[in-house]
């Protein structure tokens, strides 16, 4: 094999690390997107019997946005296996206990219940905020496009930009801003 062919093969079959920013993203919609990269469905060489999935690093999972009343209505079921061991945890309770769990469940549900699912989940790295260990972050070479546009908040603009923003009136001097 030529040197070029060898490099091509490395590039084709090497595992890639993707970054997904979950800030203000719907986990129910984001789950299938992340699962696609974990299963390798985004590659033309995909085959169900070959393990061609990639790693996905999901950050800012504490800032996910469930639609409507889902935080109150969505319930996660668990059973210990003993009689009376069933428990139902609401989404907001689960998110308080572990801010990565709702996203993790969403990705897990998005994949088919095959034997490969647990191994695909091992390649998912979830972080509640932007603090990711360097040994993980140095592998990341791609960012998955967020499904929803995250509008900048007032704090993201500089004071100069806020000053320049067109105003209809100026507040009078004696006006008290609460």
């Amino acid at each position, binding site marked *: 094999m030529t040197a070029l062919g060898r490099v091509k093969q490395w590039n084709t079959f090497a595992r890639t690390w993707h970054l997904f920013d979950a800030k203000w993203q719907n986990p129910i919609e984001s789950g299938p997107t992340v699962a696609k990269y974990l299963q390798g*469905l*985004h*590659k*033309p*060489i*995909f*085959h*169900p019997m070959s393990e061609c999935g990639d790693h996905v690093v999901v950050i800012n999972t504490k800032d996910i946005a469930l639609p409507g009343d889902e935080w109150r209505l969505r319930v996660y079921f668990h059973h210990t296996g003993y009689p009376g061991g069933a428990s139902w945890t609401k989404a907001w309770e689960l998110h308080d206990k572990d801010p990565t769990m709702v996203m993790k469940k969403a990705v897990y549900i998005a994949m088919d219940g095959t034997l490969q699912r647990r191994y695909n989940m091992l390649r998912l790295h979830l972080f509640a905020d932007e603090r990711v260990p360097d040994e993980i972050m140095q592998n990341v070479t791609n960012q998955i496009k967020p499904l929803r546009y995250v509008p900048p908040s007032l704090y993201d603009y500089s004071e100069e930009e806020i000053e320049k923003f067109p105003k209809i009136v100026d507040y009078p001097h004696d006006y008290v801003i609460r």
Partner: protein
Amino acid sequence: MVFPGMALLQRAKGPDSFWKKRRLFRLTAHFRGRNRNVWTLVLRNVKRALVRATKGRIERKKDMHDLRVTRITAAVEEHGFTQPLFADGLNRSRVYLDTKVLADLSIWEPRTFKALTHLAWSKTFKDRVEGVDEQGTPPANVAIKDLKDS
């Protein structure tokens, strides 16, 4: 000893049952447990296996088609386009390549496949196909004005 007369008029016996059974036992050699050796079970299971094999020949074609569509979808989405629009655009451009060829092109000839994606995108954009506007602006520098409308 010689048997003249009636003995010669006897109906000819069929083939040896040992060899008849052996034909089926060869088909069950890879079965599990008693299904491999017990004649009554072998009879039943060989029949079922052959029925499944017949169905499998049709299923395999569907599975391969699904796999190729999956691969084409992945390759098309690399270039920011969608598979249904891609198939529609190729049909409108009179590019009659089947899924097998397209899947092979996406793996072995990625640049050719990219050109096909751009062609389909431009054609669907020109024909105002429903849903193409959501994909954004089509790639520039694609000459499709010489294509006859199908």
